């Protein structure tokens, strides 16, 4: 068995003979108040993930596509140790995602749709605070933070400005810097470019490509942007209402359904048009999985 460790991973050793991510029959069910139950409180079971299984090899970039409420964020939160499962199992570099959380937390970081920072604090202060949780002392962050901010294209004269003064694109760059500062070996990207202007979106996508080329990182990208998935990922999966319908290279997906685009593949797999649908049931799903 071969092992290695990233600088931040510290005491958490990484086995080289296991996949980066192994998910088997993973199930998550939320219980929400049934709005149609009248004055009596009744809880309704809302399955967010239904027996999802897949494997991601080390160094691979996998994109999971899905509409709002499909279960993408639930999957990311389960792998981030922020949720407990209701069945099945998930392993990250061989560690049980629900029982060996301390080991996993040293290996994983994420970027989500919302940049999520202390708004009154500056980019430098936010990164410094986040890095301490991973055991990085001031002597290291004084050197590393300006370097990583420069790398993501963040202007050096704005590093001391409160986050609330920055555009969404700028904030998302700082979010990428925060994730990379801790040298994660698994990077979870949950709609990292949603809501960004076209230029910022392109910059973030370029940076993700750069991370792939220069870091020993495995990437799980959850998105509803099909072009983004196609351009960044080795394999593309489709999560629909908690079920993973497929996970394979884009060319195989197109061949399997005999189509030319991923939008057509979505239609062929679900019988519905991507993003166009809207009904009350979907609203309920969105509320649960947001």
């Amino acid at each position, binding site marked *: 068995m071969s092992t290695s460790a990233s600088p931040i991973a*510290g*005491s958490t050793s990484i086995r080289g003979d296991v996949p980066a991510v192994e998910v088997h029959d993973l199930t998550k069910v*939320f*219980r929400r108040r049934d709005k149609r139950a009248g004055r009596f409180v009744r809880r309704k079971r809302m399955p967010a993930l239904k027996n999802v299984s897949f494997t991601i090899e080390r160094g691979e970039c996998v994109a999971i596509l899905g509409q709002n409420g499909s279960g993408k964020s*639930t999957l990311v*939160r389960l792998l*981030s*140790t*922020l*949720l*407990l499962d209701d069945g099945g199992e998930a392993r990250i570099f061989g560690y049980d995602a629900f029982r060996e959380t*301390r080991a996993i*937390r*040293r290996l*994983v970081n*994420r970027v*989500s749709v*919302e*940049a*999520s*920072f*202390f*708004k*009154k*604090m500056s980019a430098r*202060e936010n990164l*410094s*605070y*986040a*890095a*301490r*949780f*991973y*055991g*990085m*002392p001031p002597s290291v962050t004084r050197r590393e933070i300006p370097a990583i901010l420069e790398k993501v294209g963040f202007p050096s004269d704005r590093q001391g400005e*409160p986050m609330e003064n920055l555009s969404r694109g700028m904030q998302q760059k700082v979010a990428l810097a*925060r994730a990379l500062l801790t040298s994660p070996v698994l990077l979870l990207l949950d709609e990292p470019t949603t809501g960004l202007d076209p230029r910022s979106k392109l910059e973030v996508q370029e940076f993700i490509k750069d991370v792939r080329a220069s870091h020993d990182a495995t990437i799980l990208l959850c998105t509803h942007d099909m072009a983004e998935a196609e351009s960044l990922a080795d394999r593309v999966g489709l999560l629909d209402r908690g079920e993973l319908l497929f996970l394979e290279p884009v060319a195989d997906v197109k061949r399997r359904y005999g189509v030319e685009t991923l939008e057509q593949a979505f239609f062929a797999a679900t019988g519905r048009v991507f993003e166009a649908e809207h009904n009350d049931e979907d609203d309920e799903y969105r509320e*649960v999985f947001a």
Partner: protein
Amino acid sequence: MTAAAAALRRELIGLGGIVERNIYLTKRYFLWDVAFMVWTIANTLTIVFIARAVHVSPARENVLATQLLVGAVIWAFLGIIFEFLTETVAWERWEGTIEYTFMAPLSRSMHLGGMGVFAVLYGMIRATILFFVVAAFIGIHMPDANYGAALALLTIASISFIGVGMMTSVLPLISPEKGAQLGFVAQGLMLVVSGVYYPVTVMPHWMQWVAKVSPATYALRGIRASIVHGAGVAWADVWPLLVIAVAAIPLGLAIFNRGERYAKQHGKLKRSG
């Protein structure tokens, strides 16, 4: 460095990170802090002026004013500790950072411990300012005060206060809407049974029994004795505080971990909005 020493170092750096973040935030919200300080001083004055309205000898009035002042300062100090610990979750949820903090490899004891350490330091600075400003305004004389003993007792009591605060800090995790308010209810109840402005003996018998397990009872009794009579640190006040601290910290952590597990099971460990 051994693996255990390296792990401890990482944890302490994480604890330092929590303190560091709160220093940044305090600097950013400095004017809010000044306003809050003015409000606290005004509130304390309304309590301490009661001593002036009681027709007793000037010496007795001075003692009464000092006792009320100590009660009000401890109330304010405890309020800071409970506020910081109870809002460990609420702040992060409001700022949206909760998921990043709770998925970081920092033990919950260091996370909450960092909040507690900052709250104690910040609370002590505020309590000191409050104490001397109100004493000067009212003209309270404390010629025998043993400030060293009072500070020592407050420090020892703080460990128990942090433990109790940890128990209430889980409430916003379980109930995002009502959790923080329930934390303040716990603070109020603790002070009511601890004789914040009156001797414990004036309360009904059952409340006096409850007072025995409240760390504030011993802190108030000991600090009043130090400030009014110049007493030293009495073992009779110290040992109950240590016993309560030894029980409260692990119990607080256990309750928080249980609450965190519940939140993870039910999807409540997430940002607002």
